[in-house]
């Protein structure tokens, strides 16, 4: 510190946080301010090409919420179901990798990450083929009379939720694995020694100790899944559109930046609010 003070004077500490401050300003503060000012601009007087002037038009928020709240609710519902599915599937897999995989641990972890080597878009498109009306799965389900003659999977809420679950599963598994892997297997033995049945060992020892991973994993799934639009647009129909689809359409097709920005801010506020409540309820404030 003394050496630094000789070079920079007594304000050495401020110089040291400089790089971090600049990073935050460029990548967080500046885009955020731009989004907020756009959301409060008049859509009638400006355009994406000529730019917008800040007129403090709060009406944008009222209109965005009034027009698109059903999409918002659908987003939260789909993302919520997908998150629960991811948690159940991911927990089983993460547990198996952490405690049962033995020498296959590394291989299994690589397999969890492997899908990231191909584009998100291509993987979602391939699900479109798998779930297609004349595809193997639909045909089989029709033969078994689980699906009706003209029943389909593609363009249903099922397909969208399945797509979300598939795409975000690794984001649930990795934090869960990290949490579970840290649990000393001796604790399981100690619990068994202290009269805990296998079920009680899970509820009283493993589950509470894996909570940081549960909270981390579900947040990393729920937050991006709520704002996602790729799954809904590739695997869904106009009836399964999510708020992300609306934001995307407002920005690109309609060229209505202020309403798009207002909708984005609303989504962000809702998510931050839900996360705060969730994290406090789970007793894992130290994550924030």
């Amino acid at each position: 510190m003394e050496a630094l003070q000789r070079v920079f004077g007594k304000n050495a500490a401020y110089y040291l946080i400089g790089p971090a401050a600049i990073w935050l300003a460029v990548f967080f503060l500046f885009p955020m301010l731009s989004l907020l000012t756009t959301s409060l601009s008049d859509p009638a007087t400006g355009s994406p090409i000529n730019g917008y002037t800040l007129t403090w038009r709060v009406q944008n928020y009222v209109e965005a919420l009034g027009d698109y709240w059903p999409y918002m609710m659908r987003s939260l519902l789909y993302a919520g179901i997908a998150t629960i599915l991811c948690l159940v599937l991911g927990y089983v897999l993460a547990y198996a990798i952490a405690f049962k995989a033995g020498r296959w641990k590394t291989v299994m972890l690589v397999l969890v990450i492997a899908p990231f080597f191909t584009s998100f878009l291509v993987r979602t498109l391939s699900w479109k083929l798998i779930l297609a009306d004349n595809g193997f799965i639909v045909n089989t389900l029709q033969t078994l009379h689980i699906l009706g003659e003209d029943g389909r999977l593609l363009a249903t809420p099922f397909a969208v939720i399945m797509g979300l679950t598939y795409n975000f599963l690794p984001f649930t598994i990795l934090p869960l694995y990290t949490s579970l892997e840290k649990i000393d297997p001796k604790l399981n033995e100690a619990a068994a020694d202290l009269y805990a049945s296998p079920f009680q060992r899970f509820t009283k020892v493993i589950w509470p100790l894996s909570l940081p991973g549960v909270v981390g994993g579900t947040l990393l799934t729920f937050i991006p899944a709520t704002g996602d639009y790729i799954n809904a647009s590739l695997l869904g129909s106009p009836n399964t559109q999510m708020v992300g689809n609306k934001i995307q359409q407002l920005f690109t097709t309609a060229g209505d930046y202020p309403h798009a920005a207002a909708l984005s801010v609303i989504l962000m506020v809702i998510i931050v609010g839900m996360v705060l409540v969730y994290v406090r309820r789970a007793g894992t404030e130290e994550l924030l």
Partner: protein
Amino acid sequence: MSLADQARGDLKLTGLHKRYPNGFVAVESLDLVIPQGSFFALLGPSGCGKTTTLRMVAGLEEATKGTIHIGDQDITHAKPYKRPVNTVFQNYALFPHLTIAENVAFGPKRRGAKDPAADVKEILALTELTEQAGKRPAQLSGGQQQRVALARAIINRPDVLLLDEPLGALDLKLRRAMQLELKRIQDEVGLTFVHVTHDQEEAMTMADTVAVMNKGRIEQMGAPYDLYTNPHTTFVANFLGRSNLIKGKVVGREGTGADAVVKVDMHGTIATIKASKVHTTSDEGWVGIRPEKVLIQPEGQTIDAPGAALSGAVVVDASYIGVSTDYTLRMPWGQEITCFEQNTGRRGGLIPVGTKVDVSWRPEFAFLLDSAQDVEAGLEED
């Protein structure tokens, strides 16, 4: 109600055998009866099978063959959570998300105790942890964590308490204090304690009975005093304390009953060994003598020992430790033996390196072991 009222019988291992899928036999046909209320130690180097034995009793490892009984109850195949047995784990394995009181209450709650608070309070007082009740394990010192592990186990009043190297993670000074503490608690609660350790001093100071294990078998079992003064194998002689083992030939047997002795020729000098300390039937054997029983005196001076003296030894090293001095002596036939001498002040200084000395010992302290056994068995490699 005293805790001791709960105990229900001896722990009996019959033909207990453990073979791992890779073919390694960890425990070989072990027969053992541990009387109710005793403090029993299983002592041996790492890999000798002592921990595997413990884990089979706890139910954390399945026996390949044999049975485990407590009293008349067969628990060989009982699930760990259905056995009247509790374990103090090597690194304690305390639940990090629970407070000390919750850790201690874990067992009683799983067994359906409605309100174990009174019991918890009593046990925390016994283990001197009352002040720590609301803290988490990470906030406690090693010695305190050790006591929590103990409290968490004994609150369940198991028939048998298993301790897996419970003091291994503590530093020397704390370990000595905890040894006394453990002993005190065992006296107070009167449960059967089975203590697994590789520390011979720990086993001897704490246990009533020590079983020395080697390669999946029990080499010798008995009270610490008997094990130390009358080892039956070279492994026990070397692992439990230290021994000088000198090759000898049996030249005669004299006397009967308690006075029976065996005469052994050690490189020309005849040593007399009590028949009760002879553990070989062949004509050759290792004459064993503990270093602190070895008496030395510079050549020409008289030694205070009734037995024969070996002459012609030379001091090759003398390390002064304060209370005692360790001498290394080279015998005329080339072997080096060790002598620990109390610094009573009688000698008025050390015997200088290079001095020629006579060596002797009181005959009742010597023992004779089978010459076919490895003279270096049980010596620590490190």
